[in-house]
């Protein structure tokens, strides 16, 4: 089905189900309960999950397959946002032209930046991409103010032309839509004491993420994907096998730049403003963290990593001392204070600390990321099942003379 086979198809269907049912899955706690603040099933956050998912999936096509570690991918994210907002200002509030332009502009910039940066590999490539991104950030912040609106960031204005939307000047700022369906539109489903918010913007972004994910599976399983893995494995052998590595790496760079541009455009489509800080190196670093945390070179890893980091940033950071006191309310007062003091640096504003420790643990113990963790657990269970069946000989036969 869809040109996918076996486990890839299963994986794609599972991710599709997760995206479709996310508003329910991420809202497990009834409203009014003390845990309700950990519900992540509101459109604003879910949109960020899937949009950064797209960003990480694209980044993984470059980093996971070819091994080229770009440290400037946020530049394409920012470019996408600027391009989209300009489309909203000049052409129409419809998100389709905006997203097309975001992807195309990011792709063109990726072509130029990639062409130059890919002359070097390893750390030098990373530094070159970082330099480009920081240059673009600095330009957007200062010299290019007429285009980017500098520090304030690019915003919609009442007197924007918006050629396709008719000449009428709106009385309030218009909102983004998809042929009339407003991106901010939501429907709330009440089920007992649970509440699920279905947002148009989330589902639109979710569908695009599924398409992006689908394309990435196809790329991973294609001859092109095999060549990219060969680039990572041994460029020397590639050259002496009659293959030109440069266009392969450049194609991967441009594809991942376009994914980033699409993600940037979607960010603007959900909230039509674009600021230079979206291009800053911390944002480039974030997508590297997402990909490595989830598992570079795996299909699902980047999506998991993006979700986890955005969850930490938005939910884990909400645990303040008040919440901790409520949690440890049952223990004696002296102990309660001690426990709160111990946990304090790790939660709330200290969420970076927990994330950092987790990142270190993953890199040291699970170099393949969370996906490898899942695989190991799966293998453990399977082995247990097999031992019960007394089929150890089968395992031994599979790995002869090791």
């Amino acid at each position, binding site marked *: 089905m869809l*040109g996918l*086979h076996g486990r890839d198809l299963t994986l794609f269907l599972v991710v599709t189900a997760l995206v479709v049912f996310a508003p329910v899955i991420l809202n497990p706690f009834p409203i009014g309960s003390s845990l309700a603040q950990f519900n992540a099933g509101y459109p604003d956050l879910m949109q960020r999950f899937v949009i950064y998912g797209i960003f990480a999936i694209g980044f993984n096509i470059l980093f996971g397959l070819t091994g080229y570690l770009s440290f400037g991918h946020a530049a394409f994210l920012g470019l996408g946002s600027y391009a989209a907002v300009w489309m909203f200002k000049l052409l129409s509030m419809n998100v389709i032209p905006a997203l097309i332009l975001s992807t195309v502009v990011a792709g063109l910039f990726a072509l130029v930046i990639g062409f130059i940066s890919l002359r070097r590999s390893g750390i030098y490539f990373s530094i070159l991409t970082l330099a480009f991104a920081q240059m673009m950030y600095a330009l957007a912040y200062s010299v290019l103010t007429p285009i980017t609106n500098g520090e304030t960031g690019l915003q919609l204005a009442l007197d924007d032309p918006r050629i396709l939307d008719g000449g009428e000047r709106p009385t309030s700022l218009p909102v983004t839509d998809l042929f009339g369906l407003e991106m901010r539109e939501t429907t709330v489903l009440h089920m007992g004491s649970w509440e699920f918010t279905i947002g148009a913007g989330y589902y639109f972004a979710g569908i695009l993420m599924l398409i992006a994910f689908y*394309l990435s599976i*196809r*790329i991973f*399983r*294609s*001859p*092109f*994907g*095999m*060549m990219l*893995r*060969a680039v*990572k*494995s*041994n460029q*020397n*052998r*590639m*050259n*002496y*096998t*009659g*293959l*030109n590595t440069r*266009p*392969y790496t450049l*194609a991967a760079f441009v*594809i991942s730049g376009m994914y980033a541009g699409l993600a940037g455009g979607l960010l603007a489509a959900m909230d039509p403003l674009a600021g230079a800080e979206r291009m800053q190196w911390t944002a480039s670093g974030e997508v590297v963290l997402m990909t490595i945390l989830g598992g570079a070179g795996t299909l699902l890893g980047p999506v998991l990593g993006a979700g986890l980091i955005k969850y930490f940033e938005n939910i884990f950071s909400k645990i303040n001392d008040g919440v901790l006191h409520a949690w440890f309310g049952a223990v004696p007062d002296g102990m309660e204070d001690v426990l709160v003091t111990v946990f304090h640096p790790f939660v709330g504003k200290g969420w970076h600390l927990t994330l950092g420790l987790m990142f270190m643990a993953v890199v040291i113990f699970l170099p393949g990321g969370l996906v490898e963790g899942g695989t190991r657990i799966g293998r453990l269970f399977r082995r247990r099942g097999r031992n019960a069946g007394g089929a150890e000989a089968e395992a031994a036969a599979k790995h002869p003379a090791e």
Partner: protein
Amino acid sequence: MGILEVKGVNKRFGGLQALGDVNLSVAERTVHAIIGPNGAGKSTLLNCLVGKLIPDSGSVMFDGKSVLGRKPHEINQMGISRVFQTPEIFADLTVLENVMIPCFARRDGAFRMHALRSVRSEGGIRDQAEAMLADVSMLEKAGAHAGSLSRGDKRRLEMAMCLVQEPKLLLLDEPTAGMARADTNNTIDLLKEIKDKRPITMCIIEHDMHVVFSLAERITVLAQGTPLIEDTPDNIKGHPKVREAYLGEAQV
């Protein structure tokens, strides 16, 4: 006129004359060995043939066309494959994938973006790669991780990757360096088999005289960057000039 014609090639590294006026002609469908003591310029010469180094002067013609100024991948597409001293394979990929990649390179050229076509649908390429693996009796290892192979098997795999491209000229850079006697003999047998089965020209750089005299039909002796003599193995054996060149260096 040989398939490979090297004329008046010079290469200098700073003050060192690595190659001085090298002339070499390799006839089609022969096994031509290049021997010589350490530092004689054998590897430099080989690197000039595959585009890794560009000679300061002289010409290198392959199949009637000049290879000078061309990149390694272009030279490979002309029909020259190379086996390295330490096997260069795709260690992170499976054995089968290792052989499929040269098949793709042969069919699609230096770059082709089949990004949405599934590898599964490439039955022809897979069959070709499997047939090649069967030829070098490695088919049962097709699914194995190439990096986990033994040294001998890596060499065998690299050979398969080169041969599946059906090159007109196969360059071998000390293919048995660092191998145990048994592995060396296996490699000799493999090369003999290849030679008998395929219309291929081979050019071997080798230290091991046992390998050279088991395979070569012509031998060029290189000393201090210059060809000393070129002849049949029988005439090379015991030639005074050759003994002189090797003198002081233990005959291994």
